[in-house]
């Protein structure tokens, strides 16, 4: 029996392997190009200013108002997105390490999360540029967001563990997720305002059912000076507790099968 919490603590105490391997994965990707690490920020620029600009003009919103909204939504979404898609494949991608006797599986989940967080950090300058443009920036809200971001991280951790386990058992999961994430991106209020979906309507209910909406909202709303809905906080609190219970149970029950599955 492997315990998720024990393994996580051990992984945090010995971070050298997963930090190094995720760092190598990142730097290696940019070695072939002359622009090198500058490429890191290009997706953020394209999405925030390109797609954000396009949708601002389509919805007749001033770019300066809209771009901060897109920037915050997109960067948080990207963290969650890359953790889910990559963790579904995390164990299979590391099978040579696992089959060689490195069986602390949390290392491989943390490797995925470390990579996602690194990309998050790399996109922060672009977010800062977007925030500088907006007249709505609330410094006190920034502090509040710094408090709610760890809540998002706590959820990302259990999501990574669960998707990694399910993805090890069903190798087609990662492909499936890749396919539907474009839809999830459009479904989540990132390039459109959540207010345009009233609470009573079907679309509004679907949107409020979407966990990604709440994870993004608790970080995005305070910075832009909106109050965080208490329903979002409840939703996230329940999701955190339930998710961690599922992750702990699944890890205890299924971690030992992972070397056999991959």
């Amino acid at each position: 029996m492997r315990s998720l919490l024990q393994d996580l603590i051990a992984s945090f105490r010995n971070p050298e392997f997963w930090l190094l391997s995720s760092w190598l994965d990142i730097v290696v990707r940019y070695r072939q190009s002359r622009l090198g690490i500058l490429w890191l920020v290009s997706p953020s620029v394209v999405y925030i200013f390109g797609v954000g600009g396009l949708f601002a003009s389509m919805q007749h919103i001033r770019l300066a108002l809209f771009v901060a909204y897109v920037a915050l939504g997109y960067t948080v979404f990207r963290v969650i997105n890359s953790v889910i898609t990559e963790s579904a494949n995390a164990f299979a991608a590391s099978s040579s390490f696992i089959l060689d006797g490195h069986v602390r599986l949390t290392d491989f989940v943390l490797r995925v999360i470390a990579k996602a967080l690194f990309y998050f950090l790399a996109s922060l300058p672009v977010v800062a540029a977007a925030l500088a443009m907006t007249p709505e920036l609330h410094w006190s809200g920034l502090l509040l967001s710094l408090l709610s971001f760890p809540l998002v991280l706590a959820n990302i951790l259990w999501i990574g563990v669960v998707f990694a386990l399910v993805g090890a058992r069903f190798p087609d999961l990662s492909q499936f997720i890749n396919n539907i994430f474009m839809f999830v991106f459009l479904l989540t209020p990132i390039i459109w305002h959540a207010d345009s979906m009233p609470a009573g309507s079907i679309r509004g209910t679907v949107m409020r059912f979407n966990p990604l909406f709440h994870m993004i909202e608790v970080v995005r709303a305070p910075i832009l000076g909106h109050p965080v809905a208490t329903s979002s906080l409840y939703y996230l609190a329940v999701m955190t507790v339930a998710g961690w219970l599922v992750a702990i149970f699944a890890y205890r029950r299924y971690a030992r099968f992972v070397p056999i599955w991959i």
Partner: protein
Amino acid sequence: MSVHIRVENVSLAVPLYVQRERRARNWGAMFFGAALDPPRRVMAHLLDGITFEANEGDRVAILGRNGAGKSTLLRVLNGVYQPTSGRVSVAGSCQALLNMSLGFNGEATVRENIFLRGTAMRLRASSLREHIEPILQFAGLQEKASHRLRTLSAGQKMRLGFSISTSFQHDIILMDEWVGAGDSDFMARARERMQNRMGGSKLVMLASHSVGLLRAVCNKGIVLEQGRLVYAGDILPALSHYHELMASLRSQGAHPEGAQEGGQLVYGCAETIEVEGGLVRVQGWITSTDGSTPQGLALEAGGARYPALQVSSTSRPDVMQHFGLRDASCGFRAHFAVPSVASVSDLGTDVRVLGGSTGAGADTQLRIAPAIMLALRGA
């Protein structure tokens, strides 16, 4: 605390997914069957009720056909697979040398990969730093340290993997087959290091098809067949159990499966070479891992290959006893017609004696006794 491995009644069952067996009548049926038939789940018992014990000082040979569960057992001992039932206790630091050329990042440099593999083996980066140069040196890759790993040849990667995996001494070594390819210079160094590591470690478990190697290295042996333990004990009875098992499988006609697919290894030794009446006469012994005596022999000298004119088998109880064979008739006396050879030294020094199940298929080089090497050099 003493170093030991204890395995009590260990079983491992894993689910396998197989496609439903069905006779496709035509191409179309096969086409749709492949897409639509759901896979069926069957439990495969890879290990079944295995119990044995190895203590400090033991060198344990793991014998068995391909697919008998040798590698699976090593992975259970390594903690990768957790047994479905039973208990495994391994006391002492453990290093598995199972697949040494995997676990790299192809785009990262050789030096970065040493850190990567090292930390994956739970080593501290601080203690790794002073090992980088020796590792590179042993692999012969000092000039390649900042090259991308992708640009290395397969042999170089293997050398690097071996060099990293073996640069630290552990109490227990788990090994699956002896190190494979490499140029002769590296192989000599690799062999020396392995002997050092095995000498320095307190417990070795070695799975191999090479009976000669196992006989030379191990003092204990366990025999596996279809996941079950056939025998556990001293090396000699283990080898004879193994040969008996192979012989009984052969008599059931089961040998094409498992034994033949690279599993059947020929080994032997040429002990004397004489030139007599225009013919070269070679004496020695030959056997194979499935316990049968191969009949094919060939001699290579000066780049030309000469099949044996005549092979007669001789009785070699000493060889039989040494390897625990079932059959004493593993000795051979073979004559080869090599033109214009008057004495042994005329053959030159690059003489090879090859063995195999048929004369034409004889491709395994037999060991050549040191006395012959001296005679070939004309000493």
